[in-house]
């Protein structure tokens, strides 16, 4: 069943055309990824779906009803996790959960049950009594998510929920999202500029760039539609510059960049590729320290679509 349809959605700020008439939809039970670099327009899109911003054009249909005409249609079914921590730092974790639960219309034993359930899911039950301002960044992030889960929403929208936190909290959050989707049947829109997260979680992905959705589909569809590329990461002991120049001469190779002391090669499918690489590097007086061959991924899809890397 189609839960949400976005049609020709458009938003201009004074000097920026942030969202340029985009279309996409979400089926019930899906995890839809919204992937894009900084400033792509992800948060703006999400703000419009969450009824925070009024679009300048287009429509958003939730369960057959326009939420622009009737914001209430989505509000009570929506769990919104903003990109920023939106909590009351002076209140305790428990007080925050209770307050936001009430804001969603919960009360009495339902509220209490929801609070204890959610605090278990997000794993902060032992710190519930403490003021939120004493929480670590990761705990605040988790509570930020928890607040959106209390009323058992049909749809959760998460805007970069893992920004700036430790790997452990991040893993916890990703697993939470999967749990909510699989065990509670929640539909999720997940925004990120980490392609691994989106790849790991999402059934379907929209790639956004400069206010437009430039590609959409499952990971496999995206990879296939954009000519599957092979990613090879090579680490050599020295003379990276010469190696990069040489590697670029291989016919099937499309891009070679240096990142994090690795040479990252993106190439068309080519049976001779590995042989050619070994040969080219063999001509230099260097030692190969490691070589990692990756399946084509969203990073390479984005790169081939825009000529830029996802992360700055």
């Amino acid at each position, binding site marked *: 069943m189609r839960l949400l349809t976005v049609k020709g959605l458009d938003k201009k700020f004074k000097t920026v055309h942030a969202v340029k008439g985009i279309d996409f939809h979400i089926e019930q039970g899906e995890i839809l990824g919204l992937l894009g670099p900084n400033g792509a327009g992800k948060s703006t899109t999400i703000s419009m779906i969450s009824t925070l911003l009024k679009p300048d054009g287009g429509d958003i249909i939730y369960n057959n009803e326009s939420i622009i005409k009737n914001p209430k249609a989505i509000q009570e079914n929506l769990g919104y996790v903003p990109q920023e921590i*939106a909590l009351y730092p002076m209140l305790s974790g428990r007080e925050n959960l209770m307050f936001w639960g009430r804001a969603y219309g919960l009360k009495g034993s339902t509220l209490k049950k929801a609070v204890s359930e959610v605090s278990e899911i997000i794993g902060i039950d032992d710190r519930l009594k403490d003021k939120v301002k004493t929480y670590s960044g990761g705990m605040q992030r988790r509570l930020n998510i928890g607040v959106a889960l209390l009323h058992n929403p049909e749809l959760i929208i998460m805007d970069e929920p893992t920004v700036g936190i430790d790997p452990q909290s991040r893993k916890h959050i990703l697993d939470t999202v999967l749990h909510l989707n699989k065990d509670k049947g929640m539909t999720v829109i997940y925004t990120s500029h980490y392609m691994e997260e989106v790849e790991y979680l999402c059934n379907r992905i929209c790639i956004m760039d400069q206010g437009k959705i430039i590609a959409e589909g499952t990971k496999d569809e995206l990879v296939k539609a954009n000519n599957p590329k092979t990613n090879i990461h090579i680490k050599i002991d020295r003379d990276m510059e010469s190696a990069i120049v040489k590697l670029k001469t291989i016919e099937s190779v499309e891009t070679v960049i240096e990142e994090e002391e690795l040479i990252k090669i993106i190439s068309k499918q080519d049976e001779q590729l590995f042989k050619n690489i070994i040969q080219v590097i063999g001509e230099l007086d260097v030692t190969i320290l490691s070589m990692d061959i990756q399946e084509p991924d969203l990073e390479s899809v984005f790169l081939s679509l825009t000529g830029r890397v996802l992360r700055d």
Partner: protein
Amino acid sequence: MRLGQLIIKDIKNIVYDVKSLAILIVMPVVIMSILGVALKGVFGNESGSGITSMNIAVVKQYDAAKEIENFQSEAEGNALINQGDVLVEDINLDRIFFEEFLENKEIQEIITYTVVDETKAKELIETDEIAAIVYLPEGFVYDGLVNFTSLGRNKVKINIVTHQDYAFSNQILISILEGFSEKLNIEKARNSAFIGDLISKGVNEHIGDIVANLPENMINNTETILEHKSANRQKSITSFQYYATAMMSMFLLYSAAFGGKAILSEKHEYTLARLSVTGISIEKVVISNFVRVSLICILQSSFMIIYSNVVLGIEWGSLITIIIGTLIMSITVGALAMLLSVITLATGSFSFASFFEFAIIQFMALVGGSFLPLEVLPEAIGNLSFLSISGLGIKIYTNAMYELPLSANIGTYTLLLSYAVVLVLIAFIMIKVNGKKVKAC
């Protein structure tokens, strides 16, 4: 979500925040206490009313009996002196100065005197026991009698020698005495009418006039200590009482400034966006803020009144006037906070709230009489006092102290409530007009 939940959250946010709580509640109490200590420091020893007095010595350089005798023998057969029906005793400056003036209840609260000879007086001032010596010159009684009964203008002169450590107290002493002697000379023109006035009501009734006639530079130094007294009131209140109301009314305005910033802060903390996503309207949010500020004001007022009463011994007077006044003041300040919060939200910056804090509050405090009582302010400024919410607060609370009937405040109550209504209306209109700008994100 019910408004009540929003309000509880808003209150918790303050109560848990030691810093804002301190600013809103502890600060006024601290300032009130400092004021109390400062006022006590000016004077020597404490007296029952909370006001304390300064000690002076009076040196009589005349012989009253002899001067009256001189006057009477001269008056006989002197056509220029019109004794009429006036009894010498009534216009005897010796009696007026001591019995009507220095023995007056209000003056007594400020000045304690002893009559001594010159040597003793000098000794007292050297041993720091008195703040000043007042010399009543030879001819004091005689000149007074002549002035009152004839067209003659023998200037009545009083000399003062002051102790340099008591400069502040002495400013007051000088201005009071100047007022006194000025009265005697200026009012001479109206002759017996004045004398009758002086005698029937006592000099105390004129202290208000005296204060009002003080030269500009005197006012600056005397305003904090002088008895605040108006001629047509039943009870008098001390300056300490007056400044308690002035401080309190002014501090309530800071709560409005605080509330004026609160909603934009929520926007910056993104909780406003979250509230909006749950379907809570901006109107509800600002109304909650209104109620919160009103409750803070009630809390502030009660705290200050009880503290100043129990610890500083300030009498606040009629309870019913205070309760109704506090409620209405709090509502109006809450409404002010609501409008401020809408303005800061619409402009997206705290600058208007800051402007309010640093300019409008000061303006209201000035024209409302928080710095100087209206009686000593130039009339042009005093005429603006109806614009000042804090000024109207002072009016209500001092009326409570004067124990005026509740009806004396109806006008002020009504004015304050109309301000509240207007402020709320403007706030709602601004939300409507600004639409998009007063949104959560």
